């Protein structure tokens, strides 16, 4: 079947790949007896894209090619209706998550990704590297000293911020860009797409954009998950809070590259935007946390990979607020420590975004766009 995995090739069963994916969280896939309940119950399954069972099957068979060449992992929002009704308790949702990890790992630098995917001490190592990088930067510009006034610039000189941010950003963007291209390439080599001519290609590419925009802005597909309403709200708030914070950082960077008068007073519009965004982010994350607690017993399985991502963002938000709070109280040392942690956290978040769950922010919209463009959904 053309629509089912890689066309026309004999599929060689590879148990090493299967075992790897099971380590990635797809261990439930072993239990699956291929009844198809998950596919039929999935609110996102569309006829051309039979998932999640097809992905579970590919995991059972250890078909590296099929897993890499499928857009399905990115079309899934882990709403877990499949896991809730699975007659074998095979947790297909987890398999989808594992497939995403596998694609991320395969499309980026494997050993680094492993730090965030399976190796539980990985985050400590990466945080240590980030801290080292940060303190080395401070040392290099001679700013590694105790602060004397409550001014951020006095803690961390602007060039350090610039250079560190640039290095982390460029690294992240490069890795993410390559990863996106690789994923898109794999998917394009997978199932046969429906476009024919160049002109059709271009118009299809343009026509596919609105879908992506609505997806990004409103997460239409995610809202289809019937059981996932609180999750959807939480996710939306987190995302917009994060974007808000990202935009404020960008704005400050653009308007005030020298960071004069920084930090702003609390009445500064930019500061207001920053604080509101932070509040939205944290509220959203709390909602997600609450939702996860509510569903813990039934369906959702969140592993190391997931929590690392969650808590680093959460920590970024929280430490940001803590910095604000300390600054407001005029406490010098605590502000300095919190600020350092905050910066390290953010640097870590940016630098290792393509290896963490963060990668979905980059890959998912492109895969959705491509799938629409190529007629896969």
């Amino acid at each position, binding site marked *: 079947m053309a629509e089912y995995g890689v066309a026309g090739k004999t599929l060689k069963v590879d148990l090493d790949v299967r075992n790897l994916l099971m380590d990635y969280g797809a261990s439930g896939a072993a239990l699956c007896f291929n009844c198809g309940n998950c*596919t*039929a*119950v999935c609110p996102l399954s569309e006829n051309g894209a039979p998932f999640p069972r097809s992905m579970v099957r590919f995991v059972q068979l250890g078909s590296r090619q099929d897993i890499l060449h499928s857009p399905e992992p990115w079309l899934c929002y882990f709403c877990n209706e499949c896991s809730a009704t699975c*007659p074998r308790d095979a947790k297909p949702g987890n398999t989808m998550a594992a497939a995403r990890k596998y694609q991320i790992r395969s499309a980026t630098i494997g050993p680094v990704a492993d730090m965030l995917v399976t190796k539980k001490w990985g985050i400590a190592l990466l945080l240590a590297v980030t801290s080292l990088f940060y303190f080395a930067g401070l040392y290099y510009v001679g700013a590694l000293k105790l602060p004397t006034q409550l001014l951020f610039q006095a803690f961390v000189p602007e060039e350090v911020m610039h250079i560190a941010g640039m290095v982390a950003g460029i690294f992240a963007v490069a890795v993410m860009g390559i990863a996106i291209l690789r994923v898109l390439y794999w998917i394009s080599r997978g199932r046969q797409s429906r476009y024919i001519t160049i002109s059709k290609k271009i118009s299809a590419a343009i026509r596919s954009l609105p879908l992506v925009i609505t997806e990004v802005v409103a997460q239409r597909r995610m809202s289809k998950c019937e059981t996932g309403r609180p999750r959807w709200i939480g996710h939306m708030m987190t995302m917009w809070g994060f974007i808000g914070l990202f935009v404020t950082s960008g704005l400050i960077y653009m308007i005030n590259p020298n960071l004069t008068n920084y930090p702003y007073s609390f009445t500064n519009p930019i500061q207001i935007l920053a604080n509101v965004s932070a509040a939205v982010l944290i509220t959203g994350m709390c909602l997600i946390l609450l939702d996860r607690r509510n569903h813990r017993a039934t369906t959702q399985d969140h592993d190391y990979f997931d929590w690392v991502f969650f808590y680093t963002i959460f920590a970024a938000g929280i430490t940001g607020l803590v910095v604000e709070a300390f600054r407001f109280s005029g406490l010098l040392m605590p502000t300095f420590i919190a600020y350092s942690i905050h910066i390290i956290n953010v640097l870590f978040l940016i630098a290792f975004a393509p290896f963490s769950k963060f990668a979905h922010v980059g890959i998912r919209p492109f895969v959705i766009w491509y799938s629409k463009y190529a007629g896969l959904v």
Partner: protein
Amino acid sequence: MSVNEYDVLVIGGGIAGMEAATALGDMGFSVVLVEKEPSIGGIMISLSKVFPTTDCASCISSPKVSTVAHHQNIKLLTYSEVLDVRKENGEFKARVKQKARFVHPEDCTGCLKCEQACPVMVPHEFNQGFVGRKAAYVPFDTAYPRSAVIDLNNCIFCGACERVCPTNAIDFLQKDEEEELSAKAVLITTGGKLFPMERKKEFGYKKISNVINGLQMERLLAPTRPFNTVLRPSDGKVPGKIGYVLCAGSRDASLGNPYCSRICCMYSIKQAILLMGALPLVDVTIHYMDIRAFGKGYEEFYRQAVDMGVQFVRGRVADLNELENGDVLMKSENTDTGKIVEEKYDLVVLAAGILPETHNRTATEALGYATDSIGFIKPRADTIGATEVSEGVFAAGLGTGPKDIVDTIAEADAAASSCASYMKENFGKERAEKILRELM
């Protein structure tokens, strides 16, 4: 010998209980058979036909009913419940409650006059609620004892039945009665029940009128059926397209029943074949995961259904929804093609699985047998091929696990055999001495 002493107490008068009681009675043991319903016969007597022979189920089980009813070694207590049973000095003592029928069965001729006179109408259990019955009623045509019973929960005490009864058999002052009896061995054949399909909310059972369960379809197909043809409940239309959902409530960890119910594949195939015979234009589609046609002649029966044009689609049904005209929209994945199938059916039958009947389990708890997580009686540890579940206590039929009629019969006979061996080994000498004493 006092009247209340028996060799074997058999609890449950379905096909397993009847078979075991007959076998033990034929061997010369005195048997008391306790059945909680007003008539013996169990589930089997209400079925349409049996697979793979398509013999009429009530036709082949009613002779069994008759044999038990007239067996000189079998004492039958219908509409009775074992309240408790315990072991004392190697024998079993039981308290049995004879529920009040409000009719004296020895006087009742089964003339149905009370039934005709009774103004109350409630859903008929035997016919799965498709038609009504009165508060004064004979349970079903081939019931034994063929005696009316008055359902006091629904009775309005109008006295109409009492007035028309030609033999004055009706007695509203009748009370539940308790009696003590003793037995040397106990045989549990308490049977099973259908999985309560309401628990799978995606299937909308009892919410969508044209979604019925397998036992309901049995009644629609039975020779003694209520409508004389197959009609769907919502509007009485003869269905043109019928869908079967296999493994409904079975093989489903999300509903807490990991077991296969063993008979649903075959009874669905049988019903499909009967439907093809009854409604020549009908299309029947069976949605399955594995067709478990494992018994003798079953695979051939399955083939027969395929050849007759019954459609088999692999993939578990995930969702059922009611459409405006009463049709049912079914969603599943056809796992052979990997495509999602959305199919409209006039009528959908849930091939509901089997659970053990645990009604009043506490009464027999003191017997010391073990049960599994959903209540099936387990064999004694490390035994194989045995029907003895604790010393002197035997079990057979659906209570020990889902099974079809033929396996139930074999198990009931095996239990009777082991029970007889137990009796001979433990009471053989004493019995002989007793008989000798009586002779002298």
